[in-house]
Each structure stands twice: as structure tokens, then as C-alpha cells.
């Protein structure tokens, strides 16, 4: 070991380096070692348990017998399952579209005002994203409460009737989506604001000289410049929204009937509450192929980043 250690201090001059040392000095080996903690983390705590979950999904309810795709076949035949698929898609797509729209609008408005005031506004508008969702959803639950709703109180002041925010299917879906938008839009805002700042001012000036209207400037200058970030943020958010658990759990627990259940909450209901762990795992797994479609897009985007760098 001693003669290995000695030349290492003048690594570029010695010819008699041991093969181990050579290996250690090779760029790709060092790189691999540097990435090793990341690889271990992902394999041990994500990939392996995910594989185990796949294994669970092939067992019968009492986890004693291998049933192959039996659980999947079983789910395909259940009307409730297809309701959940629909609801999850409705929830994720609507929420992400509105989060993106609101995020874009707000980012645009913040970008419009003099930079002195921007900091303050940005700070205020980021608040929903900063509060832990488990906490802020409780505030919403309290705002929606059937007996004490602060929203309904306002409506009563204007002589309007009460809305049962969480009691009626469509209102319940609206409320759940609304809270998700509320909590997620600021993230879009901050990402878009970052992107807006990186659009060179000259492009706008050039567009103005060409007589572009406000709308044309957004359409032909801003949006193309932000294309990448919009795509990545939207896809990242779709993944997270699709797998959402806290909001529905706290607000409606899936009700009324099962009309606001998402994959995650329904899987919890089946797996933990009703004691059918393999079926619960099967439901959860369903998110993965649907999201994989989104992942394909991310893959493309990221590999593009990689090749340009």
C-alpha cells in the first residue's frame, strides 16, 4: 500500500502505478463512485421496495398464494376501479392545467410590476406552497365545514344559500381540485418567473419595434422561450398531483360515496383500512404505467438538456 500511496501525490509523473490505482484515477470510475450514494439510495429505498410491491400485487388477499395477474383482472371488472381511474385523471389534468394557467398569469403580472415591489408580491404569493399541505388542508377543511363554513357565512350575508362544499359530488370534486390548485400554483409561478427573467429583454424590444401586440409578444416570444420549463414543471406537477394523498384524505376521505377517491386514497382504503394489502398495492401500481407516459416526455426533455450541455 505504501508504494501505491507515494506516487499518488505526483500522480501525473509516475509510470509504475498499480492497476488498482489506475482504475481509481480513471475519470469514469471516479464519476461512478461519486454517483454511487445516489444509486444506492434509489435502489435500496425506491427500486427494491417498488419491486417488492409488484411482488405483493401478485399475491392473494391473505398473501399466501401467487395469483399472477389475478388482482389486475379482478380490478378491471370492477366499476369502482374505472371510476377511480376517471377521477384521478380528471383531478390531475384539471388541477395541472389550472395551476399552469394561474402560475403563468401570476408570474406574468409579478414580472410586469416595477422590480422594487416584486419581492414582496412574490413572497406573499408563495405562501401556500410553503405551508405544509397537511396543515393548510386542515384550514380548508375548516373553511368548508358543513356547520361552520366561513364561505357559506359570506354567502349568507349576501342572501345566498349554503353550498355543501364537500357533500355533493361535483362540489366536492371542485373543492378538492381547488385546494390542490391553491397549494400548487405558487410553484408554477416561481418556476415561470425564473424562466421569464431569463428571456432577453432585446427580444421584446425587437418585437415591439415590429409592432407586435401584447398577445403576440407572449405567443411568439415568451412562450417559445419558456417551452422547456413549462413542459418540465407541468410534467413534474402531473406526477405529484396524480399521486396526491393528503388533500383528499383530509378533506373528503373519498366521499361522498367514492366520488372523490384518487388512486392513492383508494389504495389506502382497500389496502390498509379493509385489510387487502395485495389489492391495495395493485391499485397503487396502476399509477405507474399512466405516469410512465408522462415520463416519456420528461425523458425526451432531459436527454435534450444532456446533449446540449
Amino acid at each position: 500500500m505504501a508504494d501505491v500511496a507515494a506516487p499518488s501525490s505526483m500522480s501525473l509523473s509516475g509510470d509504475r502505478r498499480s492497476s488498482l490505482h489506475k482504475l481509481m484515477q480513471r475519470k469514469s470510475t471516479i464519476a461512478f463512485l461519486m454517483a454511487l450514494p445516489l444509486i444506492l439510495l434509489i435502489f435500496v429505498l425506491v427500486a427494491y421496495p417498488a419491486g417488492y410491491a409488484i411482488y405483493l400485487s401478485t399475491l392473494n388477499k391473505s398473501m399466501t398464494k401467487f395469483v399472477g395477474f389475478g388482482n389486475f383482472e379482478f380490478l378491471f371488472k370492477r366499476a369502482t376501479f374505472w371510476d377511480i381511474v376517471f377521477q384521478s385523471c380528471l383531478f390531475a389534468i384539471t388541477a395541472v392545467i389550472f395551476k399552469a394557467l394561474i402560475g403563468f398569469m401570476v408570474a406574468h403580472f409579478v414580472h410586469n410590476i416595477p422590480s422594487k415591489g416584486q419581492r414582496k408580491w412574490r413572497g406573499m404569493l408563495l405562501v401556500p406552497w410553503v405551508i405544509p399541505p397537511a396543515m393548510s388542508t386542515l384550514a380548508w377543511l375548516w373553511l368548508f365545514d358543513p356547520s361552520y363554513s366561513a364561505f357559506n357565512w359570506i354567502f349568507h350575508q349576501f342572501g345566498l344559500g349554503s353550498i355543501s362544499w364537500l357533500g355533493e359530488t361535483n362540489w366536492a370534486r371542485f373543492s378538492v381540485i381547488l385546494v390542490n390548485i391553491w397549494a400548487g400554483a405558487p410553484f408554477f409561478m416561481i418556476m415561470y418567473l425564473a424562466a421569464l427573467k431569463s428571456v432577453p429583454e432585446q427580444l421584446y424590444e425587437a418585437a415591439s419595434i415590429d409592432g407586435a401586440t401584447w398577445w403576440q409578444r407572449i405567443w411568439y416570444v415568451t412562450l417559445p422561450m419558456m417551452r422547456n420549463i413549462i413542459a418540465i414543471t407541468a410534467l413534474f406537477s402531473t406526477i405529484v398531483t396524480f399521486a396526491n394523498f393528503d388533500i383528499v384524505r383530509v378533506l373528503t376521505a373519498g366521499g361522498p360515496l367514492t366520488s372523490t377517491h384518487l388512486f392513492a386514497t383508494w389504495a389506502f382504503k382497500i389496502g390498509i383500512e379493509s385489510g387487502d394489502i395485495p389489492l391495495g398495492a395493485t391499485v397503487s401500481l396502476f399509477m405507474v404505467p399512466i405516469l410512465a407516459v408522462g415520463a416519456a416526455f420528461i425523458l425526451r426533455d432531459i436527454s435534450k438538456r444532456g446533449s446540449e450541455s
Partner: protein
Amino acid sequence: MANVAIAAEAPVRPKHYGSISRDRRWALRWSYFFLVLFAVFFLMPPLYMLLTSLKTSQEISAAANPWWVSNPTLENYAALLTKNDFLVFFRNSALVSICVVTVTMLISVTAAFALARMKFWGSATLATGVFLTYLIPDTLLFIPLFKMFAWVRDATGIELMNHWWTMIILYPTLSVPFATWIMIGYFASIPKELDEAALIDGASWFQTLTKIFIPVAMPGIIAAMIFSFTVSWAQFLYPLAFTTSASELLLPVGIVTTLIKGDVFNWGQIMTGALLGAAPPLIIYAFLMDYYVAGLTAGATKG
């Protein structure tokens, strides 16, 4: 709500925008108008949390104007801040967050450097694969993790269930992928000549990273740190599933599980706890937001 509106109106008064066209001024007015609107939407729940936290439970139960506090009291705050449990939750959360941020940065900065600058067999796949970990939801993982914890105990005698520090092991799965992604983007934006020059001067890869890349990438690192902190402060499902004893709970779970008993919600204290729980990230954002935006700008928009 009223004072939000007033505060928002103040900057509208024209200052030195004589040169700005009418067009521009109208755009500005509309911007403020919508900003106020959105601020009301965004800030209403926290405001309501604040109002509720100042009420007595009698006032909450009385069906009076919910948007007004007639007998403001700090008893909810006093009750929570003198309760040992709550301080323990706070300490646990703080320790977990600090450790998770440290671990996340150690893993993601080195890995991002390797992936963005050094390339090895499979590095491109890994760079994309990292992001894919988000495709696997934590609701799918916690049951297998129970089983793995059982094996770890049988093999080593280390009990992972019902300990707050278990979260230091689990949370990085949620924070590292995004942090790595930000860092890859940031490192990619640093000119190639910089590290080439360093290497020619005889610096090792490690020195290149610590002496050149990390200082240059500081805004990106701060952004990634803030992100990791937010994630670990807010996580709910893992601590809910893996910890039970009052001495081992983290703040969000602690508030939800100790202040709601059976079918009785103690709204005043819940809202107080929620507000206090939201305070650390709020403070961090207030001070470091500029870095956050700057870091994201550089890290996220490249490519």
C-alpha cells in the same frame, strides 16, 4: 382581508413613470388588480388560520361571524408553546430537516457533478432515471418498507420503526432527485473551459468540484437546499406510517395526531399549531427567496 387590499393599492400611485406610455400604465394597473385578486385567494386560508388561532373554543363553537375575532386571546399559543410534546415535535422536525438537507446536498451535488461533467457508462440513463423515481408514489412504498424494516431488525438488531431518525434515511428519496436535477442543470451552465483549465493545472476532480464548481453554483445549491428543506418539513405519509410515540413524531403529524382526538377537533389549537409549523419555512423563504429564484433561473432554464 381589508388591509391586504390597502397594502396592494399603495404602490399603484405613480412614481416616475412619466416616460411610460399610457398602454404600459394600464398594463401595470391590471397587473396590480389581478395580483390583489390572487393574493386574496392565496392568503385567505392562512389568514383564516390566524383568526381561528386567536379565538377561544367557545367563540369557535358559537355560530357568529367567523371572519372576526371578538375576544382575541393568546391562550392557544400559550397552551402549545408550554406543552412539552409540541416542543419535542418541533425539535424532531428541525433535526430531521437539517440532516436531510445535509445528506441531500452531499449526495446530489457529487452525483450531479459526476453526471453533468464526468460521464460514465450509463450516466445518461441514470440522469433521466433519477427523475423517474418520482413516478413511484410513497403510498406504494410504505408497506414494502415495513417488511424491509423487519428484515433489518432480524439481521442487525437495529429497530427502524417508531424512531424519528428513520426519516433521515427515507426523506432523501423525495428530495434528492429534484435537487440532483437542479444541480445537473446548474453545473451544465458552467463553461467547460473552467474545469478544463483546473484539470490542466493539476487539480483533481474532487478539487475541481469543491474549489470551482461549488462556489460558482452557490445559488443553485441554495435553491436545492431550500427545496429539500420544504420537502422534509412538510412530508406527511412516512412519519404517519412509521412513527407513533409522542416523543418520535414530527411536527405536521404531531399536530394532526395529538390535537385531534377521536371525533373532537380542537380547532383553535390545530390552527395555532399549523401556523407555528408553517413559520420556519416561511421565515427561510422570506430571507432566501432571492437565491431560490436565482438558483432556479439558472438551474432550471438551461437547455
